[in-house]
């Protein structure tokens, strides 16, 4: 078990280093010059002013130092929690801008990820033994998985928001309410939360249901199931074993899907103009705010790594083989 965690930690550490390095490399080695782009965007007429801006940005980015020094400084600043200063909401530090948006994204992501996983596995396990349910769940599951996140979001917003008028279709709260810890605000925020949540939940649901159904059928046809039923074990017991075995790959699947789910949350936020990281990233791209973009990237990577680590811990609790260290070298 110590070996299992040592391996996982090594991979997460390496991933973090690679992510930080990619983040550092892209503005320096990609074609196109972010500093010129930012100076051009400011539309300064005097050449001296433009030159001053260029020097300021070069200094801020640290482009005036040797490369290896830039790299080390980048790490140094990062470890002190310094992501640079946002251009889009100048002069707020990027870290603060991101922290303001984070609760909205987490409030959307965590329930959507967990609930779709639980409900999807439950429906999938049910449909593996009921023909009627199977014939409806399977096609519906395929349609849901094939849908782009933003399309189902747009359709929901149109049907339940614009047409039916049940839910607001944009923003995280009403404009006449001050965000804070009041009951009014909580209710209003919840009202705005329903549609984005529903779209994320629905798209992810189909995949989990199909995966669980296939795994259960696979387990029910395996040797140990036939052996148990030959021994005259009750069907309930066999199903319970099948379920417990089928759930393990689904936990691994949850870890693998996290990166993709982040993408889903980003585009869904953009559809609903929800004030989370996704909307911030869109604003950062439109305003060529590279610090904000880089900061958001690192935030996302750190979030995915933490979530993956939590899933690894859950896996150890659920799968006795990893506990006794018999799982071997593959991670």
């Amino acid at each position: 078990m110590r070996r299992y965690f040592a391996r996982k930690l090594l991979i997460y550490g390496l991933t973090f280093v690679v992510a930080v390095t990619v983040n550092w490399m892209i503005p320096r080695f990609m074609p196109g010059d972010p500093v010129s782009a930012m100076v051009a965007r400011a539309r300064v007429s005097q050449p001296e002013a433009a030159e001053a801006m260029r020097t300021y940005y070069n200094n801020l980015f640290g482009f005036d130092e040797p490369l290896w020094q830039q790299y080390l400084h980048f790490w140094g600043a990062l470890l002190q929690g310094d992501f640079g200063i946002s251009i889009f909401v100048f002069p707020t530090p990027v870290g603060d801008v991101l922290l303001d948006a984070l609760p909205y994204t987490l409030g959307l992501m965590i329930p959507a990820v967990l609930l779709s996983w639980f409900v999807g596995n439950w429906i999938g396990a049910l449909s593996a033994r009921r023909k009627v349910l199977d014939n409806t769940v399977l096609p519906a599951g395929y349609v849901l998985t094939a849908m782009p996140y933003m399309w189902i979001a747009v359709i929901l917003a149109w049907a339940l928001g614009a047409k039916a008028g049940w839910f607001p279709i944009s923003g995280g709260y009403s404009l006449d309410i001050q965000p804070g810890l009041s009951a009014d605000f909580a209710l209003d925020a919840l009202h705005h939360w329903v549609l984005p949540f529903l779209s994320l939940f629905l798209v992810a649901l189909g995949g989990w249901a199909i995966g669980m159904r296939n795994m259960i059928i696979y387990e029910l046809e395996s040797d140990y199931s036939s052996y148990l039923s030959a021994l005259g074990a009750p069907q309930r017991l066999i199903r319970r074993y099948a379920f417990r075995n089928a759930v393990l790959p689904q936990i691994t699947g949850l870890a693998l899907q996290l990166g993709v789910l982040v993408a889903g949350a980003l585009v869904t936020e953009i559809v609903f103009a929800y004030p989370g990281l996704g909307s911030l990233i869109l604003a950062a791209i439109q305003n060529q705010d590279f610090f904000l973009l880089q900061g958001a990237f690192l935030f996302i990577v750190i979030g995915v790594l933490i979530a993956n680590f939590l899933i690894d811990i859950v896996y150890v609790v659920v799968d006795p083989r990893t506990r006794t260290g018999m799982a071997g070298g593959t991670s």
Partner: protein
Amino acid sequence: MSTLPDPAPEAPSADAPVAKPGRESLHYAVRNPKLIIGVTLVAILLAVGVIGPMLLDNGNPNEYVGPQASAPDGTYWMGTTTFGQDVYAQFVHGLRATFLVGVVGGAIAAVIAMVVGFLAGYRGGVTDEILNMLTNVVLVIPALAVLLIINAYMGVRSVAVQGLFIGLTSWPWAARAIRAQTFSLRTREFVDLARLSGSGTWRIVFREIAPNMSSYLFMTFILLFGGSILIASSLDFIGLGPTEGVSLGLMLQSAQQWSALQLGMWWWFVPPGAGITAIVGALYVANVGLDEVFNPKLRES
């Protein structure tokens, strides 16, 4: 356990028996309803994407041709946008771009996944350790986040470049699955025999191992193809799509941007999303059909 690049953890399981496609497979293929439905749907959409733009007398789908914001009728089959652009013209051009990005992204990802998966699975040892580490690292970094910053800095955006970057980031799960398959094949007798006769690594991989899992590789490519289409539509929607021409994702973006939703112009945002869903869904269904054709164990049930 392998996973789709989108939320469907139901890629063919790694320990499923692999079979050579042949005459027998063809026999089952033409009798498999899932495969037939999926392939037919993809073929129809592909035909619309290839032939559709040729039948239009107007080469530019973004041109302002008709009345503004009119609902579908006889002249404009899918209505027009707020600016009087023909939604049908955009749709058929968009289908073409969607297929293109799927092929480019899927092919590049499949090639990388095969090289990494074969090498790691066949060579084992230190090579395997290193490649496996690399795969895991790329797997954990969210691809869309990397694509976002690369795209934002690059500025040059075409369908081909988009496909290239998607291909470069979406291979890890497939590499893992191929590695697992190769691992189970490399200890078989015919591989030992080839090794004894002095064949090199790549010769054994391509002559002995790859043909024995060709059906599996083909299915992996289909899933990567569908995944590329979904990732590309997300990028287009965020505003990082091709700067020239039109794609289904860009159509959704402009519908969103110009409040088609609030104006009730459903014909602007329903067709592009339905097009993507139809292509990707048909690919998945065809893939399940293929699995049943190649895998006798699934066929009986």
